[in-house]
């Protein structure tokens, strides 16, 4: 079963506009990560935010985390056609065995129109 829920499931905007995607999760986490996936291929890591952080920036990306609401948002500013992809949030919790396990949401499909 999925841990997270992304919202919206699909988003279509014009090039140059900002895109915001939201993620909600259910259990306590150590960190939350955002990944991008182009055309059903491999996942590319975008940004990681730890549970004690509230906001993080990387280039045109801005991620927020609200652990009290168990939610995160990813903002992509000044979107480009190359940003067209599916975006996934993934939460990480360490098991008693110490193994890392990423639990993904269902993703947001972002389309940037020229």
């Amino acid at each position, binding site marked *: *079963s*999925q841990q*997270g829920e992304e919202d919206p499931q699909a988003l279509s905007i014009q090039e140059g506009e900002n895109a915001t995607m939201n993620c909600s999760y259910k259990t306590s986490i*150590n*960190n939350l*990560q955002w*990944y991008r996936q182009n055309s*059903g*291929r*491999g*996942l*590319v*890591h975008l940004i*990681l935010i*730890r549970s004690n952080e509230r906001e993080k920036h990387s280039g045109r990306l801005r991620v927020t985390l609200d652990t009290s609401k168990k939610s995160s948002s990813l903002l992509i500013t000044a979107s480009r056609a190359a940003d067209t992809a599916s975006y*996934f949030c*993934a939460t*990480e919790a*360490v*098991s008693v*065995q*110490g*193994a*890392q*396990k*990423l*639990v*993904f*949401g*269902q*993703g947001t499909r972002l389309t940037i129109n020229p």
Partner: protein
Amino acid sequence: DAGVTQSPTHLIKTRGQQVTLRCSPKSGHDTVSWYQQALGQGPQFIFQYYEEEERQRGNFPDRFSGHQFPNYSSELNVNALLLGDSALYLCASSLVLWALGEAFFGQGTRLTVV
């Protein structure tokens, strides 16, 4: 520096057959995780290998098994294939079992069961 490599990229199998997928982790990484991604869904954790042992397992039947070799590469085996096993299988590697950080994903193997 080669990233995570998976082989083959595409595979077509018949119901009831067995399949083996292969993964070479990013150089220096010692932990390999496998994920299954059905069409339109987020990846789901299958299991993780470290020091040639399965450290954690997701909610997958025993038909799914794996192995890690001394050089850290890994195989995913699926027996008695079902139509529902059709998916993109992703391998991810990370550096240290207890480190909480990004995972590096391969491009995946697209398995089609007919």
